[in-house]
């Protein structure tokens, strides 16, 4: 097991190299310029400082020189400084990442805690009115764009009912709406996944056998059937978690949540290369690590899965 984990961790190296190389090349090929985007569109008469700044930042060096300089610094644990704010990229990330992690972990928790039980109910009551309602509601949850849902939740719960703050972050009340927005969208997928998997499992022989042994319906469903249906659900939750690290942008934007998605998008629009590289490096590594954790969880859920 440990060997397996180590081997998977080693895979991070080519991932990091690949990701940085691709981002570096794409960012350089994209039209636009960091100095222009940060300072160019702003009031100042004489523009001659621009050439001097470009020179100082090495923006006119050939791309391979810039890339090797970046890698060399990376090996030393230095992600550089933001062109826009001059802050060390590492400190920008360490400010934003905890915010995003809190947000998406609670979103995934909401999705799982809501999605799995509702999915089970839907499967057990297959064909009934409850099932239909749940299926329609879950389709609705999946298809709603999160920026829309965010505004609706904000209007209802913050503006009209005054139960939660409108925007910002800092207390647990601030967390409720953004994490629910993300969680509700995700829970739709979980509901449908749980339902279809459970229905399939319920038709298998070992379930009939379990009933034959005289186990109660509750035990059969929650202990035998659900456990076998969990693997794809865990996979999806893991994937969603990885995706959301940089993908919670709209929710972060609307709720003014200073997370890594907003940091990344802002850096991309400003062509702030060091920040883009830094944040995407962190998110892609996190993606790899989350998938590793998901694979390890498989082994616990399903004894047939073994890693050597």
């Amino acid at each position, binding site marked *: 097991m440990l060997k397996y984990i180590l081997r998977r961790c080693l895979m991070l190296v080519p991932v990091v190299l690949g990701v940085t190389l691709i981002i570096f090349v794409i960012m350089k090929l994209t039209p636009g310029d960091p100095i222009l985007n940060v300072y160019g569109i702003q009031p100042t008469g004489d523009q001659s400082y621009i050439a001097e700044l470009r020179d100082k930042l090495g923006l006119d060096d050939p791309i391979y020189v810039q890339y090797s300089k970046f890698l060399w610094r990376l090996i030393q644990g230095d992600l550089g400084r933001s062109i826009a704010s001059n802050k060390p990229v590492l400190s920008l990330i360490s400010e934003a990442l905890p915010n995003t992690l809190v947000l998406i972990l609670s979103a995934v928790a909401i999705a799982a805690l809501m999605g799995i039980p509702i999915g089970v109910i839907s499967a057990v009551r297959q064909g009934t009115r409850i099932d239909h309602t749940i299926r329609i509601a879950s389709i609705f949850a999946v298809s709603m764009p999160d920026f829309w849902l965010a505004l609706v939740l904000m209007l209802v719960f913050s503006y009209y009912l005054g139960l939660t703050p409108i925007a910002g972050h800092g207390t647990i009340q601030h967390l409720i709406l953004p994490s629910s927005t993300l969680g509700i969208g995700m829970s739709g997928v979980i509901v449908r996944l749980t339902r279809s998997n459970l229905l399939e499992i319920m038709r298998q022989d070992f379930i009939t056998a379990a009933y034959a042994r005289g186990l109660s319906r509750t*035990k059969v469903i929650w202990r035998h059937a659900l456990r076998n249906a969990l693997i794809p659900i865990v996979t999806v939750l893991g994937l969603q978690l990885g995706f959301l690290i940089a993908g919670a942008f709209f929710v972060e934007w609307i709720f003014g949540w200073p997370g890594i998605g907003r940091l990344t998008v802002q850096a991309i629009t400003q062509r702030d290369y060091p920040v883009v590289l830094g944040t995407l490096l962190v998110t892609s590594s996190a993606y790899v690590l989350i998938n590793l954790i998901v694979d390890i969880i498989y082994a616990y859920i399903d004894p047939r899965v073994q890693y050597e």
Partner: protein
Amino acid sequence: MSSSTVKGFSRYLVLAVVLTALISVIGTSAYFQMLVQPQPYTKTTTVTQTITEQARTTTVTMFITTTQVTTPAPPSEKPKLEGKPGGTITIAVEKDETSLDPIFSQAGVFTDTILNHVYETLIAYDYNMNLVPRLAESFRQVDPITFEFSIRKGVKFHDGTELDGEVVKWNIERILTTPSPRQGQLSMVDRVETIDKYTVRFILKFPTSEFLPALTWGTGIVSKAAVEKYGSDYGTVAAIGTGPYKLVRWVKGDQAVLERYNDYWGPKPYMDRIILRVIPEASVRALSLERGEVQLAQLEPVDAKRLQGSKAINLYLGEPTRMIMISINQNPETQGTKALLDKRVRQAINYAIDRRGLVEAIQEGFAIAGIGPIPPALKQFWSEALRMYPETADIERAKQLLAEAGYPDGFETTLLNFFPWGLPVATVIQAQLAKVGIKVEINNMEFGAGAEQLLVKRKYDMALHDWAGTGAPTPFGVVGEFFDPTKVGEWQWNLQNVKDPILGWLVKELVRQPDFNAQKGVSDALQRRVIEEGYGVILFYPYKIHASTQVVKNYRVHPHPWYGFVLWMPVIEAFVWLEQD
């Protein structure tokens, strides 16, 4: 499946649930612990009710003549400080500062609120756009290229060091030697000399009326000791100025917390604290204001329209400092529609645009229909009398001009847009120009790519953009670089790429003309030329829309384009306070 597996599974499940719960509880509480750092709180004592002699507002005229300029006598009436001390104001802003080092801050149409309360400039503009001394006690022009400033005595930076002439000299030299946007702003300064401990002289390279205005923004005096202490981290972790508020905490992209500076040289601010919260989404800023979570915010027209007449909200409309306009590329090598090189065609476009319609459709009425390239905030220079094209379209006249130019059936052209706000405007323009047969293809680009297209590659037929000038709120600051025939290269601001020698001469005259009336004459002539030639289409001037809840008292929008929210600036009698229970 054996029952032991089942039990095993439930054990895991229980374990997993317990672990998850434990981790989330510990994690969340640790996280919020981290967020809610203990904040020093100073109990408010009574604020000095009488304004000090030093802080008394004195004004000088905005335009510096070659004859000697001295600080005029202070007004006879003492401003009253009648607010109630205490409280915290939370302001919702769209964007964060890029840096808290004034020379690297990205001034612009965004707010400069933090900088303007932490740092102070030598001079400032008051609400009527007159120059007033701020960190300078007084100033005078010694000869056409020499200005002398008496620095306020007894002023202490937030780190306890003292302000004197040497620090001012060092600050200006730092600006002149560090490649930054401010270097261009003060490019007319040759050197700074100290006469005695509290007197400095600026010697310019050439006589210009733009020098004093350039000292009113972006050139706040920073603590030399702090810059030396923090090195390249200055402006990211520390910001040490002499202003009425000091920086307590800055989490980029989230919020900045400022706290009253108790050793401030002037009347102490009423409010204990200013918190700036970044809320990028405009409608959310409005909702936060309505719920009272923030007390002051900048609004978009659609929200302002909704809140108009609300008893809980005060709307403040600030004189427009910028304009939304179309630049028509006059360089035959980089543009693809030859028709646009014809003056009659450009005039036809100007006639075909329904500016009033745009103001209603795009700005919900919160704008003034465009006239010329000087915005209404420059009251002395903006004039309704210069309007040549009617506010609503004159389709007949446009068609007639097109026919005269040989395009009776119109022509095809493109319009570059790269601003998020620009697409609706471009779409309306497209529809309006279609009425006279001009088929416009909108070339909609992402911001970075479009900015490069406009400012570096300069390849476009027509480009939609906003314009607020390249510097100080003076006619030269607004249009000087914009119509200078020599500024048509990469990175430069003549976005029409027009090499009009008459405009070139007028631009030079703007800086040379010492007295106000002469400058007004030149400015009018320049505007007339631009309007008549139709190098651009000035669409509309959007109002600055600020709004507050009822607790905010004494607030006014400052007409300076780069001042942000002004809450406490004694020299211009900005004394905002909060009505508390």
